[in-house]
C-alpha cells in the first residue's frame, strides 16, 4: 500500500476507492486491535480518514465481511528465530521476576534444575517443532551412527502408516525427504566428529525445511491416531477423523494434549526417548509440575518440554544427571525394593550387614531423600520421577522426620524373603560389588560415587536423624 495513493484519494467526494484503499477504511469501520493499525502503517492518517467526506455506511455487507476477515487473519510479526540456540533458563526466571509469586518461585527453581533452555517461536507450530527438534538433537547427542541409521529406517518404515490412511505418496514424499535430509546431516556430523549442534539449529530455522519436517511429523501422528482410534477418541470432543483433519494435519494449529500424546506414541516412543512436560502454572507447589508421556527409561535421552499455556519450549537438565534420568535411587533399591529390580538381570551383590545400617549412604544433598513418598503400605517404593524435581539448592535440609527412614531393616521380625535367595556371604567382612553400569565410562561421573563417604565418621549428617542416639561407653559392659 502506498501512502501517496491514500492522499490522492482522501478528498475524493464520491467515495470511489480502489480495492486496496478500501482496505484502509475498512480497518476503521471495525473495532480492531491497535496492532492492526500499526502493522499497516496508517495511524497518522486517522484524522484524514475520519473526515466527514467519508460515509462509513457506504460499505456493502460483503466489504465489511472482508475487512472483518482481514482483521481476523491479522498475525503479528513475531521476533526471534524458529528455534533458538541454548540459552540460560535464568532468562525465563527474569521474565517472571515481577509476575505472580508462584511463577517467580517456580522459574527460579527451574533455573537451578534445568539451567538451559531453547526458545521456540510461537507461530502455531512450537510444540511440534520442539518435539521434532528435541528428537533429532538427542540422536545427534548420542553420537551413535548405528542408532541414527536405525531411526532413519524406522521413520521411513512409518510411510506404510501414511499409505494405510490413504495419503498420497507424491504429496508426502517431499516431507519425508526433508526428514531424511536431517538424518543425513546428523550422520555426517557424527562422522566428522562435530560437537556443535548449530547445523541442526540452522536446519530448523530454514522455514520451508522446518515446515516440511513438522508436516511429516504431523502426518505420521495423524495416521497413527487414525489407526489407533480406541486410544484417543474418548479424549476428543469431535470425531477422530475431523480432529485429525482440523487440528493435526493443518499447517498452523498448535498441538494439544491429545495430539502430543499421539505424536509421542506414534512417532517418538519407539526411539526409546522419554518425553516429559514440565508445566509452569500457578498450581500449588514450589516447582513446575512434571508429567512423563512415555515410559521412562534409564540411559537414554529425554525430550523435556516446558509448557506455558499455549506455548512449548525445550528444557535441559543439569549436565551430570543427563544419563541418570530417571534417577534410580540406589540406596532404596539396595535396602528393600528387590522385587522390581530383577536380581538376575542386575547382578547386585547386596551385603546384608550393610543393609542393617539405617540410612546407609543417605545423602540429603542429593535432593531425593526428602521427596520420597511414604505410603504406609509400601514405604520402600522407588521414587517416581515426577517427584524428583526438588531444587536442591533452595530447599532447606529436610527435617529428619521426613527422611524416608521408616523401619530400619534391623527391626524387622525377619529378613525380607528375597534375601534368602541371595547367594551366601563370605565372612571376610563387608564386600560391595558394584553395579555393572558403573563400568560404563559415560556413567561413571554421574553415579553417586561420593555416597560411601557419607558413612564416614566425619560426616555429621547422622545427627539429623531423629533416631540417632550417641553411644555411651559404659566401662562395666564388656565389648561384644
Amino acid at each position, binding site marked *: 500500500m502506498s501512502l501517496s495513493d491514500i492522499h490522492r484519494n482522501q478528498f475524493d467526494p464520491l467515495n470511489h476507492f480502489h480495492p486496496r484503499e478500501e482496505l484502509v477504511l475498512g480497518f476503521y469501520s471495525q473495532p480492531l486491535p491497535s496492532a492492526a493499525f500499526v502493522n499497516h502503517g496508517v495511524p497518522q492518517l486517522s484524522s484524514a480518514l475520519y473526515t466527514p467526506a467519508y460515509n462509513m455506511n457506504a460499505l456493502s455487507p460483503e466489504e465489511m465481511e472482508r475487512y472483518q476477515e482481514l482483521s481476523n487473519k491479522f498475525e503479528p510479526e513475531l521476533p526471534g528465530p524458529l528455534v533458538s540456540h541454548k540459552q540460560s533458563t535464568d532468562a525465563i526466571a527474569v521474565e517472571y521476576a515481577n509476575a505472580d509469586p508462584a511463577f517467580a518461585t517456580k522459574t527460579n527453581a527451574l533455573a537451578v534444575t534445568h539451567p538451559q533452555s531453547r526458545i521456540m517461536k510461537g507461530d502455531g507450530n512450537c510444540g511440534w517443532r520442539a518435539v521434532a527438534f528435541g528428537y533429532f538433537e538427542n540422536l545427534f547427542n548420542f553420537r551413535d551412527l548405528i542408532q541414527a541409521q536405525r531411526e532413519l529406517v524406522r521413520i521411513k518404515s512409518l510411510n506404510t502408516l501414511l499409505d494405510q490412511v490413504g495419503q498420497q505418496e*507424491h*504429496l*508426502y514424499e517431499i516431507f519425508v525427504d526433508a526428514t531424511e*535430509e536431517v538424518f543425513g546431516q546428523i550422520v555426517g556430523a557424527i562422522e566428522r566428529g562435530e560437537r556443535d549442534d548449530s547445523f541442526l539449529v540452522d*536446519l530448523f530455522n530454514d522455514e520451508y525445511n522446518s515446515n516440511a519436517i513438522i508436516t511429516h511429523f504431523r502426518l505420521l501422528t495423524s495416521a497413527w491416531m487414525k489407526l489407533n482410534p480406541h486410544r484417543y477418541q474418548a479424549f476428543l470432543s469431535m470425531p477422530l477423523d475431523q480432529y485429525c483433519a482440523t487440528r493435526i494435519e493443518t*499447517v498452523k494449529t498448535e498441538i494439544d494434549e491429545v495430539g502430543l500424546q499421539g505424536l509421542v506414541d506414534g512417532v517418538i516412543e519407539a526411539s526409546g526417548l522419554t518425553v516429559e512436560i514440565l508445566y509452569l502454572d500457578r498450581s500449588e507447589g514450589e516447582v513446575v509440575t512434571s508429567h512423563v508421556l512415555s515410559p521412562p527409561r534409564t540411559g537414554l535421552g529425554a525430550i523435556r518440554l516446558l509448557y506455558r499455556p499455549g506455548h512449548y519450549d525445550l528444557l535441559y537438565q543439569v549436565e551430570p544427571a543427563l544419563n541418570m534420568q530417571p534417577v534410580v535411587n540406589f540406596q532404596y533399591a539396595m535396602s528393600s525394593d528387590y522385587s522390581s529390580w530383577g536380581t538376575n538381570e542386575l547382578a547386585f551383590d547386596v551385603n546384608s550387614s550393610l543393609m542393617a545400617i539405617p540410612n546407609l549412604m543417605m545423602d540429603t544433598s542429593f535432593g531425593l531423600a526428602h521427596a520420597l513418598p511414604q505410603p504406609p503400605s509400601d514405604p520402600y517404593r522407588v521414587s517416581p520421577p515426577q517427584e524428583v524435581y526438588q531444587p536442591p539448592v533452595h530447599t532447606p535440609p529436610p527435617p529428619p522426620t521426613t527422611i524416608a527412614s521408616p523401619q530400619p531393616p534391623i527391626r524387622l521380625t525377619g529378613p525380607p524373603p528375597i534375601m534368602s535367595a541371595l547367594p551366601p556371604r563370605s565372612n571376610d567382612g563387608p564386600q560391595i560389588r558394584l553395579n555393572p553400569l558403573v563400568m560404563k565410562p559415560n556413567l561413571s561421573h554421574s553415579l553417586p560415587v561420593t555416597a560411601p563417604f557419607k558413612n564416614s565418621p566425619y560426616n555429621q549428617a547422622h545427627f539429623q536423624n531423629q533416631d540417632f542416639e550417641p553411644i555411651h561407653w559404659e566401662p562395666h559392659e564388656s565389648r561384644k
Partner: protein
Amino acid sequence: MDYTMEDTQNSAPNAHEASKLGASAQRNDTQGVTKRLQSELMQLMVSPSPGISAFPDADGNLLSWTATITGPSETPYEGLTFKLSFSFPNNYPYSPPTVLFKTPIYHPNVDFSGRICLDILRDKWSAVYNVQNVLLSLQSLLGEPNNASPLNAQAAELWDTDQDEYKRHVLARHRDIEDIE
C-alpha cells in the same frame, strides 16, 4: 511448465549447502514449491478426475494456474462450467493458494468478486491438500453451500426458500467460459 526453474534446481550444488546460506534460502523454497507443483501437475495429468481440470498459465509462471470445474448434476449448477484462478504463495504448500472464481457465480459462499469462503482455503489448510482436493471440494460446495456463514446473504436465503428463483439467479449471472477475457 517452467523450464528455467528446473534448470535452477538441477544446477544447485545440493540442498543443505544451499540452506546454510541465507541468500540461497529463497531459491531452496522455490525449488520446493516447483517440485511440489510439478508433482501435482503430473498427478492431474496421469489420473484426471471427471469434471475438473487445471493447468499452469501460459506465461511460464508455475505459481499461477487456471482451473475449471463443472457443476455437479442435480444441482442448480448442472451443466455449467466455471473458470477459476489459483495463485500459489512462495511457501506453498505450507500456506494455501489464493483461489478465485473467474466466472461470475451466484453462490452463498462466493462474493461478487469471486472470492470464496471455504475453511480448507484458510485456517484449515493442510499441506497434503492439493489442487485436485481443492477443486473437488469446491465442486461439492456448489451442491452443498454452507449457509451458516454466507458471503452472499441473498443467495443463502433463496437457497433455503426458493430453489427455482435461486436457479434463475444462477443462470442470469453465469457467463460462458469463452466470453471471459
